[in-house]
């Protein structure tokens, strides 16, 4: 008979220095964190660094975790902060078609479709960077993930009205930005 420790139990034990419990938290939540990073950045090539940083932050701030609060929203905020910090550290490179993509140009239609999809994603995320982190997040969760405004509010700890305002701002301007950038950023693969 096995027992699956609730998350809170793992947190409490990790707080007391039980390293097994901390690593169990990693095993349980690494995928969730990774999915959120992909959602926020549109790419997976930085997952190693970001996920490791998230759990490093988590390890160092466990003492500040209030046992009464929900873990997942807290983890979500830690993840978001790490993503934001990571972006700031990075010198963002202009999205260009990768060399391996060019090698793939002779591949089949599916590969070509994937290349175009990646290029489109780069355009989207490059344009999104003109907006605040909160606006990006609201837009992605509502317009891409399909969450309702209320659900986005619950997940990000803001009111529905605030979410609506943020989404509206991005909606109105995003594609104007992309349309301007498309010619120089993605023209090669359109």
């Amino acid at each position, binding site marked *: *008979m*096995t*027992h*699956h*420790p609730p998350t809170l*139990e*793992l947190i409490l*034990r990790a707080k007391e220095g*039980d*390293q*097994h*419990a*901390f*690593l*169990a938290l*990693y*095993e*349980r939540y*690494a*995928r*969730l*964190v*990774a*999915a*959120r*990073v*992909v*959602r926020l950045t*549109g790419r*997976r090539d930085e*997952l*190693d660094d970001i*996920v*490791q940083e998230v*759990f*490093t932050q988590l*390890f160092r701030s466990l003492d500040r975790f209030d046992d009464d609060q929900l873990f997942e929203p807290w983890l979500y905020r830690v993840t978001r902060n790490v993503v934001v910090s990571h972006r700031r550290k990075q010198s963002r490179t202009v999205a260009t078609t990768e060399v391996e993509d060019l090698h793939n140009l002779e591949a089949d239609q599916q590969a070509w479709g994937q290349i*175009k*999809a*990646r290029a*489109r*994603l780069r*355009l*989207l995320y490059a344009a999104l960077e003109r907006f605040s982190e909160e606006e990006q997040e609201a837009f*992605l969760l509502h*317009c*891409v993930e*399909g*969450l*309702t*405004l209320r*659900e986005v509010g619950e997940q990000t700890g803001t009111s529905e009205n605030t979410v609506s305002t943020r989404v509206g701002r991005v*909606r*109105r301007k*995003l*594609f*104007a930005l*992309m*349309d301007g950038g*498309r010619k120089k950023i993605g023209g090669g693969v359109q």
Partner: protein
Amino acid sequence: MSRRYDETTVRSLAVEYWQGELPETERVQIDQYLSEHPKTALFYSHVSEVLQAAKELDPDAEAEDWFRSRGGAVREGLVKNLGLDQRFSGVRTSKAAPVIALFPKARAYVWVGAAAAVTLLAVGLSSFGAGGTEVAIAPQTQDKAPLPEADAPAAPVRSRAIAAADFQGLTRQSETPEGLTLFASPGADYAIKAGAGGIDLRLERGTLLGEYIADGHSTLSISAPGKELVVVGTVFYVSTEETATRTGVALGAVMWKTETADRRIESGFKVDAEDDITPIPAPVITAIGGYIDLAAHEQKLADARQATNEGLAAKLPTPVRKATRRPRRTTPPAQPVVTEPTASEQAYAALAKGHHAEAAALLERAIAQRGAHKSRYLMLDLIRLYTNELSTPEKATPHARTFLHLWPTDPQAAQIRERLGDRIHP
């Protein structure tokens, strides 16, 4: 009051238009504008492509894939950077077997009351040690002992995907307890023990496809090497090979317990040896349908539910009275009956070929023929088709509303509300 539509306005509404969030009147006018203004239509086409690409990103699948290939290395990095004890890295040592359960036995009544028809597909294996990804604590050791070691994810060894061919040549078994119908693969090695508490089925090797209707008092427990299932009111199959454990649900939902966590597997999904939850291929559902009439199974479940409810109602004034058991319907034929393909069969055949629009039209027809109340899984598939494959969520909306009205507590209901909530409750 009519709104003036110029290029700036249409562009600013492009995302809402793509999301289908605009009122019908506004949508029609934008349709008209786009048809008359190729430049703006090109812009909208670009918007649509980009958003579709973002939508298809599938962060969960990306994350799962990343975790399999890189999760262990990152874990090692954490151990090193945080100065954790090196003993905590490395290969899993926990020997605890994972458990699959449709639901706890104690909740059998509740589930039969909910009456979801469930098709369970499970391929057991001889050694499941690498299947889980998290840790469990033996209750008696919780206070002092450390958690069993969590492992770095093993190198991915992809198990063979379940296929319709796995269901070829199954033979109807004659020696089965009441309520249980079994079809076995050649060479299947299994044993059945029926008792007052229910039926225990042990599968050592091979594949079993079965149909079971619980009466609310007993359960069907299935164990295969490394796996256990508790089945109540389902169509299911269990199969044991050396290298893979896979489970799937065609109708309803199961709670699947491993040492990592409890996970709910919902209608139309399967879980494989790598813990990936993915849709069951339509041909597999069709193959199962060749042995067991899924629509009839739903009706049987409804009968069982009614019997249970009657029994419970009867119990209220006189608690000692036993619930009435309704006579069971005849068991399914030993071999698939060859008949003209129904609309739903044609639909799934079209789906298997990737003809999504045709499949949707055929599912529409099948639902109309059967009636919505008998078309739970058809409706689910149709909603999925419209939202996931055809990108026409507006067509899914009326079906979603009907589904939520008929089966508000269905495990899929929450997902439907999440995906289409704004449309269903504008």
